[in-house]
């Protein structure tokens, strides 16, 4: 665990930005955390090709730092949505999704108020051309453009997603799809 006021990262294989309403979502979700001292080090880590995963608020922080394209805005129904969610694996050529078949449906919980992914028209085309859409919602719950639930960077080493894979790691929790994602990471090192 690295404190947000730190300015350097220790030697790590992977940086995980977890969920959690940093700064109470003041200003915009993830906006103030994106300016934390540690984020300069995370950006440098990205620039040298480091592996990064941002989950929920972590995804929002990655878009605010411009490491990932787009922005997350409030759900169209203005409600906090917390439920199991079916997702489609739109790109299985990433270090986080390589354990899945292309287009396979998996179930991972979502828990967010600001999960609507937005990008304008030309930027969406660019994201599609770069195979940047990693996960899509089945029955889009929040109004995300093109049903987008998760995206990756051009170099495929940074992934951001609104669903919580860490909450789907045991059959007792309803799904092990999240576990499969973390196993993908390990098998790619």
């Amino acid at each position: 665990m690295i404190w947000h006021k730190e300015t350097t990262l220790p030697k790590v294989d992977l940086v995980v930005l977890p969920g959690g309403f940093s700064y109470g979502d003041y200003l915009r979700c993830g906006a103030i955390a994106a300016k934390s001292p540690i984020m300069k080090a995370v950006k440098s880590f990205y620039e040298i090709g480091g592996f990064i995963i941002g989950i929920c608020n972590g995804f929002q922080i990655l878009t605010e730092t411009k490491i990932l394209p787009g922005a997350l805005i409030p759900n169209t129904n203005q409600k906090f949505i917390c439920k199991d969610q079916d997702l489609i694996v739109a790109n299985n050529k990433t270090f986080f999704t390589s354990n899945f078949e292309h287009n396979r449906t998996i179930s991972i919980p979502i828990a967010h108020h600001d999960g609507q992914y937005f990008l304008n028209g030309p930027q969406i085309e660019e994201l599609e051309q770069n195979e940047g859409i990693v996960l899509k919602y089945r029955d889009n719950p929040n109004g995300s453009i093109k049903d987008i639930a998760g995206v990756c960077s051009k170099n495929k080493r940074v992934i951001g997603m609104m669903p919580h894979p860490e909450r789907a790691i045991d059959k007792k929790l309803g799904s092990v799809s999240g576990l499969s994602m973390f196993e993908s990471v390990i098998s790619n090192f």
Partner: protein
Amino acid sequence: MTLNEKVFKFKVEVILKKGVLDPQGEAIKQSININNLGNILDVKQGKLFELTASSKNREQAIKEVERICADLLTNSVIEEFKYYEVSE
């Protein structure tokens, strides 16, 4: 604040860009219509910031305000801003 600095006050308005869904604005519009408060075709909800700057001159203060707007107060993917100086 040092002796050769002056205080400049600004208001900054931030609004969603055209094409970005504004569910809060939509909910407010529905409430206006349901309550027969007026014939409103569209509502957009934005943010208003008041910035009090301490700078050696107006030009420097404006430069700083512009940077704050672009770097922190707005996300250029979804929002646009305008600012103006106010006397009080």
